[in-house]
């Protein structure tokens, strides 16, 4: 974030789905995201997170206000193609995203559209499939894969065309813990190489990785800031139906019983150290 270059700029964005004009899915959202930043979008179901995610690359166009990607508006149909190359989307359900007959073709799909040479394509497929642990699945049809494997294929195929911004809508909600860690490790790596990441999630431990948390409720931004800062407002989060990690909840329960528990206990390691103190 050396230059603090604003890559995504939302100016007073509102959105209503057809037939529901009376209720705004998003209501006057203004938000600036700088290149290289990782932002976690949180909020209960129906708060507008997924709608917001779909505005970033022009899958949805604001009813009013503007979404600017490096200064270009998603309302400008002539640049929409460029915008979608810059901003890649990964959805919660990979079934809606996978189109090819074989995993290998799935990875090649986006690159083919960009006119990348076959040689370069083969190399990229090798590299990205190894990175995502799907190399041995290259010749399998996507519909025969488990949900988690499908999701890895979906993310790999979006990254194959090197977007600058990656928007992920609850990408781990169908993965097992091992698969989840893999995806989160991958996101950490992408963050280190300077990709801008927008992660829609319900998982607080995933949100803790972000530079900034943005919490939505009823289509409005109700809270944003650094994770630890947001996190200290436990009562508010609980009221919104968001989750408090178990390590924190255990501390609350014991405090209520009158035990003296430090405020910063969160993970198992911290708890073990505290409990093994002489």
């Amino acid at each position, binding site marked *: 974030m050396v230059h603090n270059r604003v890559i995504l700029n939302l100016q007073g964005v509102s959105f209503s789905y057809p037939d529901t004009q009376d209720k705004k899915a998003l209501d006057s959202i203004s938000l600036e995201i700088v290149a290289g930043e990782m932002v976690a979008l949180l909020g*209960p179901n129906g708060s507008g997170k997924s709608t917001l995610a779909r505005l970033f690359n022009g899958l949805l166009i604001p009813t009013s206000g503007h979404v600017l990607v490096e200064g270009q508006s998603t309302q400008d149909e002539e640049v929409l193609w460029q915008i979608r190359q810059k901003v890649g989307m990964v959805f919660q359900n990979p079934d809606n995203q996978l189109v090819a007959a074989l995993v290998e073709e799935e990875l090649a799909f986006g690159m083919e559209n960009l006119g990348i040479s076959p040689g370069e394509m083969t190399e990229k497929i090798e590299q990205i499939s190894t990175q995502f642990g799907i190399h041995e699945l290259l010749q399998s*049809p996507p519909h025969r894969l488990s949900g988690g494997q499908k999701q890895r294929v979906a993310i790999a195929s979006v990254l194959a065309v090197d977007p600058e911004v990656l928007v992920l809508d609850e990408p781990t909600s169908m993965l097992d813990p091992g698969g989840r860690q893999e995806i989160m490790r991958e996101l950490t790596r992408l963050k280190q190489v300077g990709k801008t990441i927008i992660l829609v999630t319900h998982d607080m431990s995933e949100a803790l990785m972000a530079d900034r948390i943005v919490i939505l409720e009823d289509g409005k931004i109700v809270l944003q800031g650094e994770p630890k800062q947001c996190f200290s407002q436990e009562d508010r989060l609980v009221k919104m139906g*968001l989750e408090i990690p178990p390590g924190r909840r255990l501390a609350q329960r*014991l405090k209520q019983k009158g035990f003296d528990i430090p405020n910063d206990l969160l993970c198992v390691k911290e708890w073990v150290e505290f409990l093994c103190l002489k």
Partner: protein
Amino acid sequence: MSKIIEIENLQLTYAPNTSLQRQALQNINLTVESGEFRAIIGPQGSGKSTLLQVMAGLEVGLGKVIVDGLDLRQKKNRRMLWQRVGVIFQQPERQLFEDSLYNDVAYGPKNIGLSSEEIERRVKTALKKVKLGEEYYPLSPFKLSGGQQRRAAIAGILAMEPKILLLDEPTAGLDPKGRQEIMNLFSELCRKQGITMIMVSHDMEEVAHRADKVTVLQKGTVFLEGGPQEIFAQGNQLTEIGLAVPFASELANALRERGKNVSNVTTLADAEREVGKMLRRRNGH
């Protein structure tokens, strides 16, 4: 207690005798008691969903599979299954299609030729169970929120009055509050109405909290089986195959490794008790 599901030596191969051949399930032996809440956990590709499909009669392998007294080796028995076994796949709301919530839930009961009074009774009972009130009946299911849509889809299955519910990651994608609501509903259906639950899940906290027994699958075979406390005490074995354990079990396992005397726990309430004991000992009470 009587056995409601009995599986012996189940094998299932995808695309046999082709280059895509893959052994999905092998040597599966499994018994589920009537009224039980069973969790099936395992890493991706371990065969969990396939096993559910076998129990639903949607996939057929080699070996004995008896569900509610029906031998699924016979095609006519597999056809009889769908009135007794409800399947809730991942994102069941994708199966909603009718013009109103009421009609969507009524679709199944209508199809089996029930009287209109019986259909009405079933629809109302099912929607009451999932807490969708009469004001929602005329609405298009697509106008409901994500959590409500999922409850609507579940109501459609409950209206068939199944004896067994097969749940494939039933809370994936719901927010914590929605998850709680759905899981409380399943617990209630199991404990109060005796519906047998077979739930595939990655949510170890819920598994620990709800299940009577846990079956761990790995590479298409049964890797471990037992009560949640017993299973989650094997933290290392589970993490090796890419699974996690609930926070409370992880804490207890780590404390035991440090030589502390802590019993096997799986829920926060248990952890609170055990940690409380430790702190009291330390404070000299």
